[in-house]
């Protein structure tokens, strides 16, 4: 940084030719110079404590994360397992209900009214009172006699 020391720009030297000119702004004549500094040759001295500090920071952060995880994970795990358990309980209830409903369907399909209708469709007849029908031991299919075949 430097200052023009010639004084040519000062008020005393103003002439008629220069009166019409605008006056300089304050400090217009102040100039700045920059000088680049090359620090490439400067080598910072190794801080013997910095490595330990870094590791301390790392382990502290790790410990904090682990502590929070240990504290929170079981709770989070419980929540997710809870969702699953309540969902399974609901499924068990549904399945149990389904089993009963299927039992009811089976009973409906096999009730005596249905059997009577099936027997009529197949032309089976109930044995007369006092009559006995002996089935021929011909095979597993000989379970009942067909009325029309007699």
């Amino acid at each position, binding site marked *: 940084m430097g200052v023009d020391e010639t004084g040519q720009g000062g008020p005393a030297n103003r002439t008629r030719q220069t009166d019409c000119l605008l006056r300089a702004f304050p400090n217009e004549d102040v100039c700045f110079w920059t000088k680049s500094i090359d620090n490439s040759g400067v080598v910072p001295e190794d801080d013997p404590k910095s490595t330990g500090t870094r590791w301390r920071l790392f382990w502290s952060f790790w410990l904090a994360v682990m502590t929070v995880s240990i504290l929170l994970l079981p709770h989070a795990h*419980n*929540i997710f397992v*809870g*969702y699953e*358990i*309540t*969902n399974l*309980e*609901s499924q068990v*209830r549904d399945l149990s*209900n*389904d089993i*009963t*409903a299927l*039992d*009811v*369907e*089976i*009973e*409906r399909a*096999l*009730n*005596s*009214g249905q059997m*009577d209708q099936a027997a009529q469709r197949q032309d089976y007849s109930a044995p007369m009172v006092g009559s006995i029908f002996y089935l021929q031991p011909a095979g597993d299919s000989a379970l009942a006699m067909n009325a029309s075949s007699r």
Partner: protein
Amino acid sequence: MSAPSDFPAARRIKWVARFGALWVLIVLGRLVHVQVIRHEFYLKKAEDQQIVKEEVQALRGTIYGSNGRILATSTEAASVYVHPLQIPKEHVAFSAEVMGRALDLDIQQLQQKLQQTRDKKHGFVWIKRRVTHEQYERLRSFNLRWVHFVFEGQRRHYPNGMLGASVVGVVQNHPRPPDRAGENSGANSNRPQEKLHHRIEYIEDGVAGLELRLDRELRGQPGVIFTLTDGKRRGIESFPNSPAVPGTNFGLTIHESIQAVADRELLKAVREEGAEAGMLVAMEPHTGRVLAISNIQRRPAGSNASESEFGFRSNLAILAPYEIGSVAKIITFAAALETTSLTVDSTFSSNGSIARKGRVISDERAYGTLSLQDCFVKSSNVCTVQVAERVGLKNLGEYYNRFGLGARTGVGLPGENSGDLRAFVQPDGMTLDSASIGYGVSATTLQLALAGSVIATGGLRPKPNLVLWRQAPGQARQWVTPPAPERVLRPETAHALTG
């Protein structure tokens, strides 16, 4: 050199630290206030918001026949509601069609209903309450995210139709009375969830037959479950405060095949005879186990056209006494053999009729001289009256009682009639003669089956029973030992009457 604290930066750090400390103190103070001082208040508030209390109705017990066929059982009944705002606008018609077909509802009306509730920005609408399991399965299979189900009580099934209907009885579904609902919902009854669903708990009460008599054991004990939920009311954890205890299952002595044959043959007989009603009881004479009770009653003219011509539910066999007629001769002759010197070879004469106190008692024809055994075989009224006069009113009344008439059998069905033996209490001149041939006295069909069992067992009167086994939840099946029969006749008397 100045102290570090004199630097402006150090002073600023100090102020920040002081402010931070103050902030921590404020937070700590608030925490102490919330967690310690107002602990109970906020705990209760949180529980009210997060914990859903639900009363779980115990599943009603199942009733089986002696061969293991289901005579009555229950499934949970689901009701269907929809969140109309979750239905995409372009899917309203499709949704209405799917639900209408699955639930057997009018599709146009359903679409209109959905559209209206959507227009009103309502987030809830009932579609159908207590649907059948088939409808529930059909709709559930579509897995529509706007369709929701809530279980509202149970539905009782009688998959074998009218088989043993008069014994098994029936239940009636009705909404839980408000006072009972209130006592169960407690302080949480105003939760948004419950308001949203307007859930009604339907309960089943036995109103006839064994459903009524065993109602307390069949219905089990309802339980209460507290469920921890998240913001979307999804269950996270359940705490069964008092788990529901399902009802006890019962196996009846009713033999399904015998009952089916009894029903079929009785119906045939009633039709053929044009009778108003018919009753049939089949029982094991030694154990008193009732194998079949069949009742058929012709419905009065002009009754509901949708019903069949005959009713099967009224248990006339225990409810309706009638004059027993010649069945009473068993009692008269048994009393004669045990209380008089008469034997099966003693003789009596029948000229076809006999006059007593101005009334004439007649036979089908004049049998002439008959042994006591033949009098019984030919069912001679004239001879029976003469035998009864040897027995006497007091002895005849006592033997009526020995055969189980005039008192309830204790079969375990509600409303059992004891029959009518008042004639023996206030006798007139004709009581002995009338009662000896079964007039002026009445008994139910079950009582007559019991009387027949006395002869079949050689003089032992069993106690009729209907329960073969019972099984409480989580326990082994307990077989019911039939009560020991009571000896009411000498074996030789019974043998003489069957010989």
